[in-house]
């Protein structure tokens, strides 16, 4: 009797704990494409590039109709928000049930390349879309690990620039935008008073933290990974770079402590509403317009460097930001998918899509068009071609983003609470992140 009772209790315990443990899997991907009644249909997962997902449908739908008219291939479009896109791709990778064509953040390129789920762009595949030489070389540098065929091709390019509020600069008696960090800190101190801060940042956003920390570390001669792909987070240059970034809030006090918890583009709205005088952002123009700030109210300059002018090596002032387009290797419509990628990267489509999204075409011939010679895009174009560098193209990149991005978020939390952010504190946080990479 007692045995039965104990057994029943154990069974109840197992049933309850199993029910509550909630160790479920990820979401399933959508079904793969299928050919029906002679016409081919492919599935395309687009990233959210517009002001909303609905906006993306409005932008892309006429272009897809154009493609169908040209080729007879129907494209089933699904626009996926950034918060879900990577998880959806991972689910599609594991289940083998995914789209034919997908947009990816270009920093994920090497990590997704390592999964083996995406079609490698060998010379032959490249020639089917017009050849590798059509693409801008800086954008191609962010398509996968070196020495292996890339598994994605550039679709939209972006770079960081410094946006500054002209009226606030005039009021503070500052003639022009800062070119070095020392100048930025000095200008920031003049601009910080009465509820206005010199600079707005997105302190709780993991991607933003990583993008800036990468540039700061580069400027101190550190790459976060060595040539064989091993993490070097605790090298002095990386520690100095991260510390300098966090100390814009901690020591220079030109950033509102409230920014430490920003991760929903609040820094853009603070800049647009005049609560902050400077902002480092990728092609913020359309975003600022949506917040009611007209192009005449702000100026655009390259992000500062330690000294001298932006360039390569320790004078890098932006990551190569952008979106790549990839084909799932197990697609049953590879030829149709390649045709679609060719269409999306064609000069004509690049002109249409880049102008609608405010991005820069990664195609050399399209880039020369006068329509991309606006003050904003001229600066971004110049940064991209002369002083931007791709984030480390190593398989562990996504892990690096998560671990180091979180470490920087914690450091900003310390700075916001008024705790000094010493080199030792930064070193400890980065060392912990590095050990978890190796683990």
């Amino acid at each position: 009797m007692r045995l039965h009772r104990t057994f029943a209790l154990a069974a109840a315990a197992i049933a309850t704990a199993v029910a509550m443990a909630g160790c479920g899997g990820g979401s399933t991907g959508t079904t793969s494409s299928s050919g029906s009644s002679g016409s081919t249909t492919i599935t395309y997962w687009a990233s959210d590039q517009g002001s909303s997902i609905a906006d993306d449908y409005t932008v892309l739908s006429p272009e897809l109709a154009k493609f169908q008219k040209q080729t007879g291939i129907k494209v089933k479009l699904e626009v996926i928000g950034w918060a879900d896109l990577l998880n959806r791709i991972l689910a599609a990778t594991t289940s083998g049930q995914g789209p034919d064509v997908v947009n990816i953040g270009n920093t994920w390129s090497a990590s997704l390349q390592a999964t083996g789920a995406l079609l490698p762009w060998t010379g032959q595949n490249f020639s089917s879309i017009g050849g590798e030489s059509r693409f801008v070389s800086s954008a191609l540098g962010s398509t996968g690990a070196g020495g292996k065929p890339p598994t994605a091709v550039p679709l939209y390019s972006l770079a960081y620039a410094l946006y500054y509020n002209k009226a606030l600069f005039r009021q503070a008696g500052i003639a022009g935008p800062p070119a070095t960090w020392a100048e930025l800190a000095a200008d920031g101190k003049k601009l910080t008073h009465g509820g206005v801060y010199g600079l707005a940042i997105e302190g709780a956003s993991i991607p933003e933290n990583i993008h800036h920390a990468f540039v700061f570390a580069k400027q101190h001669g550190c790459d976060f990974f060595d040539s064989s792909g091993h993490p070097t987070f605790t090298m002095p240059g990386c520690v100095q770079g991260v510390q300098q970034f966090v100390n814009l809030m901690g020591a220079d006090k030109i950033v509102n402590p409230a920014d430490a918890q920003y991760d929903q583009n609040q820094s853009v709205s603070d800049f647009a509403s005049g609560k902050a005088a400077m902002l480092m952002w990728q092609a913020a123009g359309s975003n600022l317009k949506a917040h009611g700030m007209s192009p005449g109210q702000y100026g655009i300059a390259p992000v500062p460097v330690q000294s001298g002018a932006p360039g390569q090596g320790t004078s890098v002032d932006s990551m190569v930001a952008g979106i790549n387009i990839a084909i799932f290797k197990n697609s049953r419509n590879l030829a149709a998918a390649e045709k679609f990628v060719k269409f999306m990267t064609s000069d004509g489509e690049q002109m249409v899509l880049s102008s609608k999204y405010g991005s820069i075409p990664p195609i050399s011939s399209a880039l020369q068009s006068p329509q991309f010679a606006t003050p904003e895009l001229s600066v971004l174009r110049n940064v991209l071609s002369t002083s931007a560098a791709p984030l480390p193209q190593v398989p562990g990149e996504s892990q690096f983003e998560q671990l180091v991005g979180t470490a920087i978020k914690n450091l900003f939390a310390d700075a916001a609470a008024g705790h000094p952010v010493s080199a030792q504190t930064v070193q400890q946080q980065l060392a912990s992140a590095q050990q978890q990479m190796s683990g």
Partner: protein
Amino acid sequence: MVVGVFISFKALTQLYLAQWRDAPWAGLANYRIAVDFNAAVGQALLHSFVVTCAFTALAVGLSWLFGTAAAILAQDRFRGRGVLRAVFLTPYALPVYASVITWAFMFQYDNGLINHVLHDELGVTSRPTFWLLGDNSFIALVTVSVWRNWPFAFLVVMAGLQAIPRELYEASAIDGAGVWQQIRRVTMPSLRPINQVLVLVLFLWTFNDFTTPYVLFGNASPQPADVISVHIYQASFLTWNFGEGSAMSVLLLLFLLLVTGAYLIVTSRRRRHA
């Protein structure tokens, strides 16, 4: 779950995602990494486990206390009792995501309601407080969890109280028992079977709660509020090391099994002896 256990013995990293069945066997390596408390991964997991235990103990304790106290106070008939009960149950009836995101807005540093009241209106704090960063994030997490779960305790205890015969209270009153003595000697012993299940369910819900911390803090929880459900999610989905994440999940499952089993055995023995 079986697949989860299977994966925990595999070195399933991003390199094998597309052919995850072909990932090499890792033996107990994932478990060894997870419980190696001298290395960063194990230390982080242990820290997260301790935080989760403290969070669960506080949140379950307070939810039970508030729920029971409110149920006892609302037991006697008075004007507006029905309305009050309905109001008490509101947090439980609201969709989790919507209510937690509202709390996240209220906890904002510069324009949140809580800082507005505490700092701007009442002047309790000398400067606005960060509720979603640093040490205070733990307080924020416990607050939201208690707010969400206490109505459930209230509901269950209220139902339990209906089953206690009025005669027991009348008899104890004749014997000279005061309110406290009635609660201690009549109410609580009668509620024991109810409480046994209630505390267990609250424990499991709170220990595994993913939505509340995830919605409050996003992908990267602050260290003082780094509870285990989000920690494991980060260890697998964000760093793409599914083998290690699964090993941590299995360890969590074993821990919950152990606690649940021990709890049921101890409480049922006590009931038999009572």
